[in-house]
């Protein structure tokens, strides 16, 4: 069965620092990749997604992610974080029309 690994459980950054959150998956076939975010007190919402094409995808609020097929990775990046980016970030993988698998999540705390 496919699985998703997020390397960092909790990341603490100062405002304006650069962010990279790791995500690796274990599945050899074609996959669809997602990053979801949950801000404090809010619902899970989609940050960005990759289905095919350009492996560098851009999402909302200045986030981007790069799909590296050879490394089975889909890392999330942002050049300069803001206090409002404090949230929990989940990587998710889907290998077709069902069976969406989520990682355990990374809690990001941005200090003002």
């Amino acid at each position, binding site marked *: 069965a496919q699985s998703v690994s997020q390397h960092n459980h909790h990341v603490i950054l100062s405002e304006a620092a650069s962010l990279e959150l790791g995500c690796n998956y274990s599945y050899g076939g074609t996959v*669809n990749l997602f990053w979801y975010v949950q801000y404090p007190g809010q619902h*899970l*919402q*989609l940050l960005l997604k990759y289905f095919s094409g350009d492996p560098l995808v851009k999402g909302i609020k200045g986030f981007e992610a790069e799909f590296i097929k050879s490394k089975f990775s889909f890392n999330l990046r942002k050049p300069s974080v803001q206090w409002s980016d404090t949230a929990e970030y989940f990587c998710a993988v889907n290998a077709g*029309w*069902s069976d969406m698998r989520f990682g355990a999540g990374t809690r990001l705390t941005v200090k003002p």
Partner: protein
Amino acid sequence: EAGVAQSPRYKIIEKRQSVAFWCNPISGHATLYWYQQILGQGPKLLIQFQNNGVVDDSQLPKDRFSAERLKGVDSTLKIQPAKLEDSAVYLCASSPGLAGLHEQFFGPGTRLTVL
């Protein structure tokens, strides 16, 4: 546009009791999902419906969990009897189509505590 609605928001029960959760998806969304999120973990898919048919229930503990979406709109998830390890947030999500091709929209969740 109204989002995914769930009720109740919180529920506390004792082990071996029964509990039911309700979800109303975004209007027009064909696909509905129930997830279980245990503290410190990511959401785990329990069951996925396409209209009123089950697409995937491979991770649903069928000896105690059941779910239905009789008219292809709202859905109910039931646990009978509950165990301590069922304490979690139960999330409902919906999408216009199948999981791999569409964004999922999540509800606020129901936080279940089993004592």
